[in-house]
């Protein structure tokens, strides 16, 4: 009976696409990362761990992983701080707040590449921001701090999305709960931090997880602002993959792609579990 009402073959097209265009390339990652596949010759031979040994010995591997993790953590931090602040500021449904929310959505819809170019122009050493501040600082040319600047730009682009999710979270909190707290003598600030904030936990998990995992897979904004520089201090994994792929070093690019996959998979397991648990409640 059940077999006829919801037939298995309904799954076929979606899973065929997933298999061919998602799982198979991922499987290939595990094979070609251990070969000498390159753009300079047609033969592909297995070379064992040579690619990883080479990437590990000159420090590239660890550095790219470290930069990617630092970038992801910074983006998650800034994006949530900005998004949360905006949501609290724009919580009431006034006309002005509604208009302001739409304005903060503009960067979310804009191409990340375009966002990167806008900030490159804004932050040029002889550019407009320095002109306004009367200083001469290379915002995107600092080997220590540029990664923070780029993370802020990434967060600027996506903070509208976090804001919307926090706003939706705030909406689900019943008003009488806050009233009860206030009757019990809680100050406005205390009612906020003790009652409202804990109830925002689902929105926080979602926002932190998507920002963290999304920025680990980031590319456009870094490429359009620093291109990985200065001195490769903002070279996250995808920038490295793009650069080495362009040089014809396909096996090295694949090896890094595998590293990114394993890194995200390692961090993603707890995330998927949380997302699925949330659905079980629903």
């Amino acid at each position, binding site marked *: 009976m059940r077999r006829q*009402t919801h037939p298995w073959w309904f799954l076929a097209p979606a899973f065929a696409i997933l298999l061919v265009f998602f799982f198979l390339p991922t499987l290939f990652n595990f094979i070609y990362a251990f070969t000498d596949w390159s753009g300079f010759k047609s033969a592909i031979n297995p070379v064992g761990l040579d690619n990883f040994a080479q990437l590990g010995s000159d420090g590239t591997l660890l550095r790219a992983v470290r930069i990617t993790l630092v970038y992801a953590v910074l983006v998650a931090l800034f994006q949530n701080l900005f998004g949360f602040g905006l949501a609290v500021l724009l919580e009431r449904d006034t006309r002005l707040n509604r208009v302001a929310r739409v304005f903060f959505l503009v960067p979310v819809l804009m191409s990340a590449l375009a966002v990167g170019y806008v900030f490159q122009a804004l932050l040029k050493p002889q*550019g407009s921001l320095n002109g306004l501040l009367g200083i001469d600082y290379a915002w995107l040319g600092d080997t220590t701090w540029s990664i923070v600047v780029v993370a802020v730009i990434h967060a600027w682009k996506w903070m509208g999305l976090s804001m919307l999710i926090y706003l939706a979270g705030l909406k*689900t909190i019943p008003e009488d709960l806050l009233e009860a707290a206030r009757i019990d003598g809680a100050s406005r600030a205390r009612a906020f931090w003790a009652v409202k904030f804990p109830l925002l936990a689902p929105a926080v998990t979602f926002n932190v997880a998507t920002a963290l995992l999304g920025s680990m897979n980031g590319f*456009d904004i870094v490429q359009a602002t620093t291109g990985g520089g200065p001195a490769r201090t903002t070279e996250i994994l995808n920038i490295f993959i793009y650069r080495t792929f362009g040089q014809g070093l396909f096996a090295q690019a694949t090896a890094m792609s595998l590293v990114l996959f394993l890194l995200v998979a390692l961090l993603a397991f707890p995330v998927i579990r949380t997302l699925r648990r949330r659905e079980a409640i629903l």
Partner: protein
Amino acid sequence: MRKLQPFAVTALVLVVIGVPLWLVVVTAGKSQGEALNPDFSLPQRWQLWENLRQVWTDGEVPAAFFGSLLVVVPTVFALLVFGSMASWVLARRATRLNAVLYALGISGIVLPPAVVTVVLLLRQLGLAGSAIGMIGVYTGIYMSTVIFFVTGFVRTIPVSLEEAAQIDGAGPVKVFWRIVLPMLRPVLATATILICLYVWNDVFYAFFVIGGRLDTLPLNLFRVASAGLYLNNWHLIFAYVVLMSLPLVVVLTVAQRRIISGITSGAVK
């Protein structure tokens, strides 16, 4: 506090959003010499129209616009149809195998696609650099997102409606097409918005898969900008940004409510 809020909001919008957008618009209206070091001053003579016309031809905007459409429309269509078919069965069956399939189906939400080896695979399939290859890759990448959103939604729909149709003798195809799909409209709207947002703006996957053999708007922006940065053609870069963002601004003003509810509905549930 309450009285200050409107001023704080206005100031924040002006500084945080207004300043970058202002820079884009005034620079896009300047001559090359004036735009050499982009600043906030108004152009001495507005030549926005000439700049737009120049990038329209230099950036091959019509071809890029067509290329973007050629990729986005079939991707959205395939994702919505195949994604909801699979989601319906995944949501309604409660077997162990089903749970495994669902976990596999949504794994792509977080796992990064293998961008390098997908190129190799497409070459072997004879699809390298083609629109079909690009559509396949995007569909593979975003299928998980669609399955996640739609399956969650189907679970909230009571089965009784389907059963009524089944008693009337409707087969699964008819039940899906006539009863289930129309009810999915809100979640499919959400999915469409998200997919369009990702695919329309994507440049990373397009670099690998298309590699210059098909024009899309972001790829051409990259080309214009790469040449432009070398030549310091900021006025052209920003003219292209204006041109590329115009459709989005139109969509946002027309459908802001839909977009806002769409983006939030999936996330907080």
